[in-house]
């Protein structure tokens, strides 16, 4: 409305709109596109959740969630991911203030929490294997490993991405491109924490209940 009033209704006006739209578009379309990717990733997890929902009680006379799951361990895992979410948030706030050192520190802390999460998950899987609960033991375990490991794989890729971005930050600083990348990873990271809510609720807590 303001442009419409100030710019004369001649040839200058469309050019004015054009640059405005371009500037807005290139920034916005990346975020929108990445959001759409996250939504499609959400569908992958939804199919895995549905599979687990259907097969999660088919124990084939094998071990049940009650025999296997260690809830205090899962609570620690959950805390790791939640802490990493808030530290990534702090990194984004420092990025907004253009303080690269603090951004890097918070990102590094986020990465460490992520590594802790993945290590605990691997340790849990090794423990389950020793307990005689590998993926091929029952349909429940197949769907369990597929769902949880897909999430763990996402977190691992997120850590790799984080390391790459730390290198980029050191080389190029807080340039516009790096900020955009950090914002994408931020969405990815928080999204994985969101999926984990579903995992610990449906798989671990509800598994132990029955």
């Amino acid at each position, binding site marked *: 409305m303001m442009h419409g009033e100030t710019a004369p209704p001649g040839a200058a006006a469309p050019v004015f709109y054009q640059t405005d739209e371009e500037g*807005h578009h290139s920034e916005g379309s990346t975020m929108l596109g990445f959001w759409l990717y996250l939504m499609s990733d959400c569908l992958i997890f939804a199919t895995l959740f549905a599979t687990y929902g259907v097969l999660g009680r088919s124990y084939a006379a094998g071990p049940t969630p009650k025999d296997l799951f260690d809830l205090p361990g899962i609570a620690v895992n959950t805390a790791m991911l939640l802490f990493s979410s808030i530290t990534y948030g702090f990194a984004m706030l420092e990025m907004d203030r253009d303080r690269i050192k603090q951004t890097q520190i918070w990102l590094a802390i986020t990465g460490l929490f992520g590594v802790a999460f993945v290590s605990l998950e691997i340790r849990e899987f090794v423990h389950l294997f020793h307990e005689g609960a590998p993926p091929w033991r029952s349909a429940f375990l197949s769907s369990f490993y597929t769902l949880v490991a897909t999430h763990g794989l996402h977190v691992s890729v997120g850590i790799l991405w984080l390391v790459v971005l730390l290198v980029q930050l050191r080389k190029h600083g807080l340039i516009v491109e790096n900020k955009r990348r950090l914002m994408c990873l931020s969405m990815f990271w928080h999204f994985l924490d969101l999926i984990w809510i579903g995992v610990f609720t449906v798989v671990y807590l509800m598994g132990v209940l029955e």
Partner: protein
Amino acid sequence: MSADAHHLTGHGPETHDSHAHSEGGHGSFGSYITGFVLSVILTVIPFWLVMGNVLDNSLVTSLVILALGGVQMIVHIIYFLHMNTKSEGGWTFLALIFTIMVVVIMLAGSVWVMYHLNHNMMPMDAHDVMNNAR
């Protein structure tokens, strides 16, 4: 085309809003802390309910922890992913609503259909399997 849309919705406030969003699109310190505290509470309660065997009825417990999980997801979407109905001209919100719709249909439909399928199958236990194999 999008210039037309801007005219229709009012260009001034729209530009201002999207500009403010792209600069401060990560929320404030306060909003992160709010989200974190809410998440901690919404995580501790379901763990406490299950580990402490607080409610006798396991069906009620599972419904409660499912509801708490759903609420925590919404908290994450608002405070960590900074979702609102305005960002990107509403397209992210539209995509989110569509995804939720598909996910709900898929999850509820799969569990419902497969539950009834299991029910209507002839009972077949390990004994039958061995007889059939013979």
